């Protein structure tokens, strides 16, 4: 896999270096994206504040025969404070990838870099920078990863199949970990149906020690989005295994949108297999109710109340109120 990956990087680097300065300036969107998220945990009476500052860049490459590639760069600086004390600081890469689209009328494209794992609802619904979460980090172990994929659109079907490192945000070439994941989706009459598969070997912390161990994880999922009259119904159901332990997850969400879609109100219900080997809890559940208000193209307000089982070992159930304010502007 290492050789294939490096070959892809080399080919695409060679293509990009051939691009003239004029081509760089055309069809380039770049925005500064800043947000402040405040979490209040009722159980421990604790407030944490997280600041995100990032660049959001998309560049479509074209020549006289049409588009042949898309570059997407979204590096973000994330800082979390508790009582004015910095407790976490890291650079995150939501998306840093190039998609080569110059073949076969966009039926077969090749993406490489850091991108979201093609799986489930998240593949079509961008939750980055919002409070919505389809639990991929908890369910799969990671939301995005470094790797390469084949993707495309054929008639009303779309697909993406990826081979990835299994390292998440950090670049780490490791023969012991990998992710193979893919989603096939179809769309008709405001109904989008998807089938996903996720097969991985991942590093996970060994309980009660600081060492790590390999976890073999599989998931097979079906998801759908049905947009009907005044409501959207979204669902994702999956089965699989963590090592040899059966796992199944269910998520259903109801969305209401205003006329111009500046206001979204949602209710999300989920049940999941808690992979907590310490407490041996077999099932967990969560309810999230929230709203997003976008009074203009630049501003976004989010509020959410989340209650239910914590994914963290030996923690009380969650009661979390989150408010987020976000501002984006083109540079």
């Amino acid at each position, binding site marked *: 896999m290492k050789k294939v990956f490096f070959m892809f990087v080399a080919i695409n680097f060679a293509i990009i270096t051939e691009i003239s300065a004029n081509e760089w300036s055309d*069809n380039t*969107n770049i*925005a500064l*994206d*800043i*947000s*402040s998220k*405040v979490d*209040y945990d*009722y159980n421990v*009476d*604790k*407030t944490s*504040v997280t*600041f995100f500052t990032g660049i*959001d*860049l*998309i560049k*479509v490459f*074209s020549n*006289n*025969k*049409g*588009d042949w590639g898309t570059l*997407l760069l*979204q590096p973000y600086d994330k800082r979390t404070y508790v009582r004015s004390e910095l407790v976490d600081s890291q650079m995150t890469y*939501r*998306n840093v990838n190039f998609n080569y689209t*110059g073949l076969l*009328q*966009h039926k077969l494209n090749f993406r490489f870099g850091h991108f*979201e794992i093609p799986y489930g609802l998240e593949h079509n619904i*961008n939750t980055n*920078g919002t409070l919505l979460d389809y639990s991929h980090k908890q369910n799969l172990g990671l939301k995005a990863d470094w790797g390469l994929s084949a993707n495309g*659109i054929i*008639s*009303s079907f779309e697909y993406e199949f990826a081979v990835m490192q299994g390292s998440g945000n950090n670049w780490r070439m490791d023969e012991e970990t990998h992710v193979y994941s893919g989603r096939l989706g179809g*769309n008709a*009459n*405001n109904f989008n149906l998807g089938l996903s598969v996720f097969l991985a070997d991942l590093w996970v912390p060994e309980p009660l020690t600081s060492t790590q161990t390999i976890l073999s994880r599989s998931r097979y999922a079906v998801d759908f989005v049905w*947009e*009907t*009259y*005044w409501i959207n119904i979204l669902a994702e159901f999956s089965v699989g295994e963590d090592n040899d332990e059966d796992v199944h997850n269910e998520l259903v969400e109801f969305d209401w*949108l*205003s*006329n*111009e*879609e*500046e206001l979204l109100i949602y209710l999300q219900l989920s049940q999941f297999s808690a992979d907590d080997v310490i407490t041996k809890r077999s099932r967990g559940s969560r309810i999230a109710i929230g709203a997003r208000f976008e*009074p*203009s*193209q*630049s501003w976004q307000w989010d509020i959410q109340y989340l209650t239910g089982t914590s994914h963290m070992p030996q923690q009380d159930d969650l009661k979390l109120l989150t*408010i987020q*304010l976000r*501002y*984006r*502007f*083109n540079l």
Partner: protein
Amino acid sequence: MRANKNISSMVFSLGIAFSMAPQSVAGKPFCSLRDPTQQIFEAFPNATNYKSIVHNIDNETKKELLGQLDFTIHSKEIGRHTVFFALKNDIPLGLIHVRTEAGIWGLTEIVWALDMNLNIIDFNFQRCRGSSCKSILNNNFKAQLKGKSLDGVLGLLNSNNQELYNSSADETSVGKESLSKAILRSAVKTMIITDKIWHEDIAKLNLNNTPEM
């Protein structure tokens, strides 16, 4: 008491974070953008590829357009927008411009296929809710729009043709007007905006190539 203090600190933190933010126009996170690939190749089956050209529709443009139109432009229509030019090798066949109209069930996304002289080739929905969405694509309304220029669409819009408007009489759109009227309004907006903002791109593509169907 402690909770109140924490909530106060939440509000304070949010205020500090955004007090310095400049006023400008932005859009959705770019990763949420998806090309209407399916619609492009359905409208132009002979196309071998398409070329995206992005331009900004800002508040100044909005004001200018409102001077020409007697209907509103909603907030989602402002910002960076892409027109997709369908190509057969390097010859332009036409263009795809997706515009949105506010409806009682949320936004209706209409995919307009225009030729290089900005006459209507076809339209379809990327997203539309309500019972009339399907029927309007199959009745006489769609046939009446094909080949129409801006003047032709304005003629239909101002004709007060009840038969035309009754073709989608379930009042899907805001203001309880028929969907067909909203579509006509969208066509007018699309043609004017495309002509104003993408005029040079169209001229350049037309200059280099002879359009064909």
